[in-house]
């Protein structure tokens, strides 16, 4: 029975196997690493150059895009690499903003101190709630984190002496009692650009090292990850806390930029939804994915608002639906596979990834 066609069917086609093995092994030389990292600094320089070409309204719009690049990249750590879809990420954004507001208003702390402290506080808080929450998976984790964000908003609303409650709180950044003077549109452009670059750099560092391997393993098979010796609880908690801290840093800068903040704005669930959509469309678990997704969504959303003041939200929603159907694995993942296999058909892509 040795050579029945049925028996050979189990083994990969020999021709195909040999063509694979003839591909020379690609050692990760320093040159390759350097080349793969080059786009980062180049983009950063381009972003600085862009600033000189924009008028005020555009500066603010691009600043917002940078903010979402940072937020999406931060969400990608837990939602993309680790595969734990956190739907309460805006909770950490708000926590960062309000911690900064309270520190600057009540403790008269400089913004430059308040920002790292807010990030640390949110990270510690996330580690604390993450310990029990990260035992949940899938929908349960998503719903539980959504609850955490809502809970945080209620706490802020119900502590008016500290947070101003629903009436909002104004950060001391103007006039004679300013702790740290407001940075101006150009200042915030640079601040958010540097924040976004720093967050993407952190993600790049994580992705290239052991932590990235551990997170991807957990994403694909948590039981298997534990079986190869990964302390899954520890790795997940670190990713969650890190993601929360980075998100809070952006929230802190946002609060400083807005001057007066309200719970409804800083804990707005739309911000979470945007982060998720940007990462999923751009490509979850990749470095470039959140950047591409954030720039695309933020830009298209703004452009549509100008072109179609009445129906822009509807058109954006429809666009997202079409994009998710055609590119369910996200743009960067599609591009990588398509380049690798030289197959660019979107229909084939839909067939391959449909659930």
């Amino acid at each position, binding site marked *: 029975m040795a050579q029945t066609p049925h028996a050979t069917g189990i*083994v990969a086609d020999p021709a195909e196997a040999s063509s*694979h093995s003839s591909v020379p092994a690609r050692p990760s030389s320093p040159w390759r690493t350097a080349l793969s990292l080059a786009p980062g600094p180049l983009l950063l320089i381009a972003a600085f150059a862009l600033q000189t070409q924009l008028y005020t309204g555009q500066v603010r719009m691009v600043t917002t895009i940078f903010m979402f690049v940072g937020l999406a990249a931060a969400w990608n750590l837990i939602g993309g690499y680790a595969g734990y879809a956190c739907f309460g990420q805006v909770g950490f954004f708000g926590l960062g903003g309000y911690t900064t507001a309270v520190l600057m208003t009540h403790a008269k702390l400089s913004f430059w101190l308040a920002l790292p402290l807010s990030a640390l506080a949110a990270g510690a808080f996330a580690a604390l709630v993450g310990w029990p929450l990260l035992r949940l998976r899938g929908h349960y984790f998503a719903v539980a984190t959504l609850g955490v964000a809502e809970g945080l908003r209620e706490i802020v609303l119900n502590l008016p002496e500290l947070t101003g409650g629903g009436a909002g709180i104004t950060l001391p950044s103007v006039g004679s009692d300013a702790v740290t003077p407001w940075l101006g549109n150009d200042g915030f452009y640079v601040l958010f650009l540097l924040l976004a670059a720093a967050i993407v750099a952190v993600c790049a560092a994580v992705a290239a090292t052991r932590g990235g*391997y551990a997170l991807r393993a957990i994403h*694909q098979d948590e*039981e298997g990850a*534990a*079986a190869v010796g990964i302390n899954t609880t520890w790795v997940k908690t670190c990713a969650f806390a890190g993601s929360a801290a980075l998100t809070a840093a952006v929230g802190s800068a946002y609060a400083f930029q807005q001057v007066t903040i309200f719970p409804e704005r800083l804990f707005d669930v739309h911000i979470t939804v945007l982060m998720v959509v940007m990462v999923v469309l751009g490509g979850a678990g990749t470095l470039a994915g959140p950047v591409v997704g954030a720039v695309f969504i933020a830009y298209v959303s703004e452009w549509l608002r100008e072109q179609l003041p009445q129906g822009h939200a509807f058109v954006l929603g429809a666009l997202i639906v079409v994009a998710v159907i055609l590119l369910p694995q996200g743009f960067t993942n599609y591009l990588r596979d398509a380049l690798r296999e030289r197959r660019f058909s979107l229909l084939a892509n839909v067939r391959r990834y449909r659930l």
Partner: protein
Amino acid sequence: MSAPLLVARDLTCRFGGLLAVQGVSLELSPGRLLGVIGANGAGKSTLINMLTGHQRPTSGTVTIEGSDYTGARPWRITHAGVARTFQIAKPFRGMSVLDNVALGALFGQSRALPLATAKRHARELLERVGLGGKDELTPSELSVADARRLELAKALALRPKVLLLDEVLAGLRPAEIDPALALIDSLRRDGLALLMVEHLVRVLSSVSDELLVLHHGQVLTRGPAQEVLHDERVVAAYLGSRYAARQRAREAGSPA
């Protein structure tokens, strides 16, 4: 014989009203291979799961090199030097074959290795199990036999002292079994303590130093392979009447 590396005492696992494993004790020593046989549902996989922390025992203890690891988390048991393969191969599908193995080399010990070192180890292991040159494939591009090899390489990457093999030969063609057995035998000669669960009784008895027969979660009998296979209770409970008849026929036909 040197001291056992892994000792299990009176392991019992209850799922609601079902006693999956009941009072099983075993010892795994360096350079020895314990074969475990039993019908489907006899508790073989549950037994392995209890040894590796994937299933907390209802009662009983697991000791590794003298320290208690009963109900410890799987990664702790991995760091203590116990590796396993899964009955249903579980590669990380989004990673290359090389990265699958490198993961084990990275995290298998309590002190994690640098990435470059881990990848070098992984390449050597792929070469050893016969997957050389397939580094950059994804697991879904592998044949059944190669997927089994990958599963074994993943476990070996942890540099274990104790290796639990849950049906690594399943799905292999006859011609592929001998090289696999030679590999397992070389591991034993390297001094690993091995436990092997397999359906192919004849094959398993040829490599085992000792056989343990599970029946409805309990140890039916244990001992040298040839004794166990001729035990009437084993023949009746597991191998079935057809095997018994063939055995009798062979014995009747063979004398000079």
